[in-house]
C-alpha cells in the first residue's frame, strides 16, 4: 500500500532491511515467511492513528476525556452523532427520529435491528432509558451533561421520551451526540456490575461498527469490525489507535510511516507548510480550547479593579501568541470559539492592548512598582508566554515572577478543598477544554464555582442569571446575545484577558484515507474512509 522508496528516496526500505537482518541473524530467512505479515499489519485496510493519551475509561456513563470518547464513538451507538465536516451539526445515528415535543420533552424512535454483541439482543428504548438515567442515579461526574433530566418514559420497544425538569438546550449539542449519549445494554451492564454502575474498562458488549478486540496498555488500542453490525459499513477493517503523548514523537512516527493520521503541534505547522511531506494532506481546524490570563480578584494585590485592568491593557496578545504558538494561533475574542453560538466578533480590550492606558490604570490604583507572580503549567508554550508577559508587564512597571508547576500541582492551585494555595494565587495562564456548547464554558465561572474551578473568584449575579437562563433559550440569536453579554461581564471585571483557542491542525496520508473529523479536528474514526486506488 505504501511505497517506502517514495518517502525516503533510498533503495533499501525498512521491510527489506528487517528481512535482511532477520536472514543474516537466523540464516533461515525466505521470502514469504510470516515475518512480513507480523511486522507490517498496515498492509490491510488498517487505520493507524495517534491519540495523545491512552484510554482509561470506556463506560460512557462515567466518561472522562475526549480520547476515551473517540473510542466509544466506534464501539457504541447513540441517538445522534456530530456530522463530519467544518460546520457544527448533528445527524441521526441509532435514532430513526428525534423531536423536541415541547421544551421539556424529547421523543426519540430507535432504528430497528441495532444489535448488541455477545447475544445481548436488539437495542431498545429500555436500554436508552437505563443508559441515560444511570448517569443521574449513580451521581456520575458527568451528570451535568444531562442537566435537568428527570426520567425517560418508554412508550414501546423502540420509542421513548426524555423528560426534563426544565428546558436544556445543550442536550442537543453536547449530550446526545457526545459521550453521555451512548446507549449501553441494560442486561449486559447489570450482569457485570452490582447495580448498573461504572463498568470502567470492561465493556460487556458493543453496539457500534467496531469492537474492542485488543488493548495493550500504553501501546495500542485495536478495534476490529463488529460482525453483528448491520449499519453503514465503515471504511477500515481495523483501527489501531496508538497513544503517543509527545506531539513531536507523533510527528516523527508519522514521518517514519508508523502512523497515518496525527494532529501536529502548532510549532511544527510552519515547517510542514514550507516543506510539505510526501503523500500528505494538512488540514487546519480551529480548536475549542480556550486559553486566558486569569487574575485572582480576591488577592489583596489584585482587589483593585484598576490593577487588573492595568494588567489587561498591558498584555499584547499577538506578541504572546507569536512566542507561545509560533504565530500559528489566532487571537481569541472570548471563551467561546468561532463557529459556536455565543462567539464574539471582538473583545472589549483590543488584542494589542495599550501601554499608556495600562499605566493610567496603575496610577489610578496607586500601584506603581507592583510585584506579582504568575502560575503556569510546565509546558514550553506557557512558560514562553509567561516570559513574554514578564517583559510586557515590565514595560508598565509591574515586576512579574514566574512559578512553573507540574500538572498534579497546577490543577489544584485554586481549589479551596486543596488547602490555602488559592489565597496566594495571583495571575495564572489557564487552558480549558471545551465541548460545542457555550454553556460548558460559562458554567465554570458562576459564583458557586468560586474556589472550585472558578479560580479567579469572579462573581456576578447578572452573569449567573444569564447563565441559568441561556440553557433554556432555543432561539440561537437570542442565546448568542446572552453569551456575548456574559463574556463582556467577565472581561469588564478585569479578571480575564482572553488569548487564543489554539488550533487543531492534522496531517494524514492521502493515499490511504479520507478522514472525517468534527469541525474542531477531533477524529470520528467510524466515518474514515479508505482512499480508492
Amino acid at each position, binding site marked *: 500500500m505504501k511505497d*517506502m522508496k517514495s*518517502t*525516503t528516496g*533510498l533503495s*533499501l*526500505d*525498512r521491510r527489506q*532491511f*528487517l528481512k535482511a537482518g*532477520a536472514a543474516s541473524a537466523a540464516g533461515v530467512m525466505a521470502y514469504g515467511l*510470516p*515475518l512480513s505479515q*507480523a*511486522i507490517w*499489519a498496515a498492509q490491510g485496510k488498517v487505520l493507524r492513528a495517534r491519540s495523545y493519551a491512552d484510554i*482509561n*475509561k470506556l463506560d460512557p456513563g462515567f466518561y*472522562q476525556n475526549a480520547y476515551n470518547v473517540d473510542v466509544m464513538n466506534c464501539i457504541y451507538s447513540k441517538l445522534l452523532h456530530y456530522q463530519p465536516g467544518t460546520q457544527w451539526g448533528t445527524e441521526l445515528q441509532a435514532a430513526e427520529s428525534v423531536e423536541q415535543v415541547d421544551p421539556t420533552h424529547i421523543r426519540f424512535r430507535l432504528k430497528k435491528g441495532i444489535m448488541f454483541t455477545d447475544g445481548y439482543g436488539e437495542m431498545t428504548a429500555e436500554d436508552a432509558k437505563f443508559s441515560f438515567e444511570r448517569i443521574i442515579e449513580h*451521581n456520575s*461526574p*458527568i*451528570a*451535568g*451533561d444531562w442537566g435537568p433530566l428527570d426520567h425517560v418514559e418508554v412508550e414501546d420497544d423502540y420509542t421513548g421520551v426524555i423528560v426534563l425538569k426544565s428546558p436544556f438546550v445543550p442536550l442537543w449539542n453536547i449530550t446526545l451526540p457526545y459521550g453521555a449519549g451512548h446507549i449501553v445494554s441494560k442486561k449486559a451492564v447489570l450482569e457485570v456490575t452490582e447495580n448498573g454502575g*461504572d463498568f*470502567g*474498562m470492561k465493556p460487556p458488549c458493543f453496539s457500534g461498527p467496531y469492537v474492542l478486540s485488543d488493548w*495493550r*496498555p*500504553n*501501546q*495500542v488500542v485495536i478495534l476490529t469490525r463488529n460482525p453483528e453490525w448491520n449499519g453503514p459499513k465503515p471504511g477500515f477493517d481495523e483501527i489501531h489507535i*496508538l*497513544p*503517543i*503523548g*509527545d506531539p513531536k*514523537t*507523533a510527528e*516523527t*512516527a508519522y*514521518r*517514519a510511516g*508508523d*502512523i497515518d493520521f496525527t494532529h501536529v503541534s502548532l510549532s511544527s505547522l510552519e515547517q510542514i507548510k514550507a516543506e510539505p511531506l510526501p503523500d500528505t494532506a494538512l488540514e487546519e481546524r480551529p480548536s475549542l480550547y480556550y486559553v486566558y490570563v486569569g487574575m485572582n480578584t480576591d488577592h489583596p494585590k489584585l482587589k483593585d479593579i484598576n490593577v487588573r485592568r492595568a494588567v489587561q491593557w498591558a498584555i499584547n496578545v499577538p506578541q504572546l501568541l507569536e512566542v507561545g504558538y509560533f504565530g500559528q494561533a489566532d487571537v481569541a475574542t472570548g471563551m467561546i470559539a468561532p463557529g459556536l453560538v455565543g462567539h464574539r466578533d471582538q473583545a472589549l480590550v483590543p488584542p494589542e492592548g495599550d501601554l499608556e492606558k495600562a499605566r493610567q490604570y496603575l496610577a489610578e490604583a496607586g500601584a506603581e512598582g507592583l510585584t506579582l507572580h504568575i502560575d503556569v503549567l510546565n509546558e514550553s508554550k506557557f512558560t514562553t508566554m509567561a516570559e513574554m508577559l514578564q517583559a510586557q508587564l515590565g514595560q508598565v512597571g509591574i515586576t512579574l515572577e514566574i512559578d512553573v508547576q*507540574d*500538572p*498534579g*500541582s497546577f*490543577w*489544584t*492551585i485554586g*481549589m479551596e*478543598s*486543596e*488547602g490555602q*494555595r488559592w489565597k496566594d494565587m495571583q495571575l495564572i495562564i489557564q487552558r*480549558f477544554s471545551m465541548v460545542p456548547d457555550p454553556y460548558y464554558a460559562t458554567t*465554570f465561572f458562576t459564583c458557586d464555582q468560586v474556589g472550585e*474551578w472558578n479560580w479567579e473568584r469572579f462573581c456576578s449575579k447578572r452573569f449567573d442569571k444569564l447563565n441559568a437562563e441561556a440553557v433554556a433559550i432555543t432561539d440561537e440569536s437570542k442565546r448568542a446575545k446572552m453569551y456575548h453579554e456574559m463574556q463582556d461581564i467577565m472581561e469588564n471585571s478585569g479578571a480575564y484577558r482572553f488569548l487564543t483557542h489554539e488550533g487543531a491542525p492534522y496531517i494524514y496520508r492521502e493515499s490511504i484515507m479520507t478522514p472525517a473529523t468534527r469541525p474542531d479536528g477531533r477524529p470520528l474514526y467510524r466515518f474514515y474512509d479508505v482512499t480508492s486506488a
Partner: protein
Amino acid sequence: MWFYLARRLLLAVAIVMLAVTLLFVMIHAVPGDPAAVILGPRATPEQIAQIHEKMGLDDPLPLQIVNFFVDVTRGDMGTDVFTQRPVSQIVLGQMPYTITLILSAITWATLVGIPLGCYSAIRRNSLIDKFVGVISVSAIAIPSFVMAIYALLIFAVWLGWLPAIGAGGDGFWDTLSHLILPAFAVGVGWVGYIARIVRASMLEVLGETHIRMARAFGLPERRIVFRYALTLAILPTVTVLGVGMAHLLSAAVFAEVVFARPGLGALIVHAVDTRNYPIVMGTVLVTTALFVISTTVADLINAALDPRVREGL
C-alpha cells in the same frame, strides 16, 4: 553463603521499605489531588470526597503507609483509581517492556564495551587505543536523549529501516525491530563507560605478579588475557553494572517517552503528573526491588568469579 543471602534479603526488604516510605512522604508533601484529576472539572465536592475516602486519603499518612505495606504482604498493591484495574496487573504488565529494554541495552553495551576495553589495554597507547578512548569518552559525554533523537531521525525517518515508536508484539522480529533503536540509545553511553572501566582494570591486572608469572611460564597470550586477567578485571565492571541498574531505569524513562514505548518509566511519569498515588507506589516498589535484586546478583557474580570475595561472604 546462605547466611549472606538471608542477610541480603533482609537488607533488601529494608531498602525497599525505606525507599517507598520516602517517596510516599515526598509525593504527599507536594500539592496535588488525584480526585480532581480523576473526576475532572465537573466533579462536585461530594464526589471528590468519595474518591478521597475510597483511596484512603483521609487517613493519617503513617496509617496510609502501614496499610500499603500490609496490603503488599497480601499481594495487593491497590487499585488504579482511573481504570479500576489492580495496580499489580498494571505494573507487572509494563515491567517486561522495561526489563527487556534495560537488559538489551546493557547486553549489547557489555558485548561491545568489554572487547574494546580489553583491546585498548592490550594495545596500550597505540593509535587504536587512542581512537577507542576518544570514541568511549564521546559516547559517555553525548546525552542519551540526543542520541535517541538522532538515531530515530536517521534510522526510522530518513532510512526507514526501523520503526519509530511502540514496542511491537506481533512476533519475535517485530518486537526486536522495535527494540533496536531504544536499546541503542540507552546503551550507547554504557559502551564507552564499560570500555574505560575494563581498560583501566585490565592495565592494573596485567601488571600483577601472577600475570607476569604466567607469561614467564610461556602460557599463550590469549589464555593469559581471557582466563587470568579478564576474570579479575571484570569485577569492577560487574559491580558498576549492578549499581547501574538505577541509572538504566532512569534512562528507560526518556527512551519510553521518545520512542512512545510502554514501560515502567512512562507509567511512573504519567502517574506522578496525575498524582495517581497507587500506581506511583506500586511502580517504585517494583523498581526499587529490581535495583536491589540487580546489586545482589552483581555481588553473587563477583563472588563466583573471585575466591577472595567468596571467602568474605
